[in-house]
């Protein structure tokens, strides 16, 4: 089972308790009535849907109920880190730190077993 670290509960909890809540760090335009339709579409509808490292909002809906931000690798489904909502975009752990995270928490994914799918 995938464990996700909740920055409010301060511990790793089962993924069953969490819900994905879309891309993180999307700022609402200051004067939303003044922007063009294209700018509004960009803000409201269009998402990057990146392969690899993404910043996402998650919600610990069946726990403390809080939204928080997470840096996740969409290829391996590995959570690189989580941090509280309202904080600025946090730097991703370095390769060594990421390796330590990986060593610390064995995550059985298809990629880990069958090789790098990228």
């Amino acid at each position, binding site marked *: 089972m995938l464990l996700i670290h909740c920055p409010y*509960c*301060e511990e790793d*909890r*089962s993924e069953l*308790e969490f819900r994905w809540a879309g891309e993180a760090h999307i700022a609402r335009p200051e004067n939303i009535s003044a922007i063009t339709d294209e700018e509004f579409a960009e803000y409201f509808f269009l998402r990057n849907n990146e392969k690899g490292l993404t910043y996402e909002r998650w919600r610990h809906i*069946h*726990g*403390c*109920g809080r939204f928080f931000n997470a840096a996740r690798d969409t290829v391996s489904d590995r959570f690189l880190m989580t941090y509280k909502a309202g904080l600025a975009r946090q730097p991703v752990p370095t390769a060594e730190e990421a390796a330590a995270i990986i060593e610390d928490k064995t995550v059985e994914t298809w990629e880990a077993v069958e090789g790098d799918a990228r």
Partner: protein
Amino acid sequence: MVDSGADLASRTLPLAGAHGGSSVVLLEPAGPAERISLRARAEDVAALSNAIGLDLPVRPKTSASGNGRTALWLGPDEWLVIGEAGLVQAAASSGALHSATDVSHRNTAILVSGPGAAAAINSGCPLDLSLAAFPVAACTRTLLGKVEIVLLRTAEDAFRVEVWRSFSGYAFGLLGEGARDAALNPEPL
């Protein structure tokens, strides 16, 4: 005048009369209780603690008891307070800005006790219920099978499972299955 029968209607608890368990787990419906869902900002916690008569816990997964009341930390600004009567009035008397919603009849509770209590709950709940990770008085909102519960450890081998009343039959049934499994595969002591 013909008796309509309306005056014979009596209120029953969702799990009234239910009993269950196995040789290692006892399942009982808890008695009626008053409950409030309390929301408040950090700066108002002290005033509310005074008014309710116990220190509202501010650390994750902790609870506090006193004055016949128990306050469970659910989130950074959210508590479930269980007591006998007058919780909403007590919170209101604090004078602090807060939201207190009476959820007494939304929830009911199941008392799970016995040496297999943790194993029975773990049949539908992924939490680590070892004493190191979930000591006595620890509490959290989590999942039991398909329903959301609030779990409180009341003793080393006893838990209180707060569940919404319409889900209580499911929760009681699932805990009954877990209790039977716990008896079939007793944990090494």
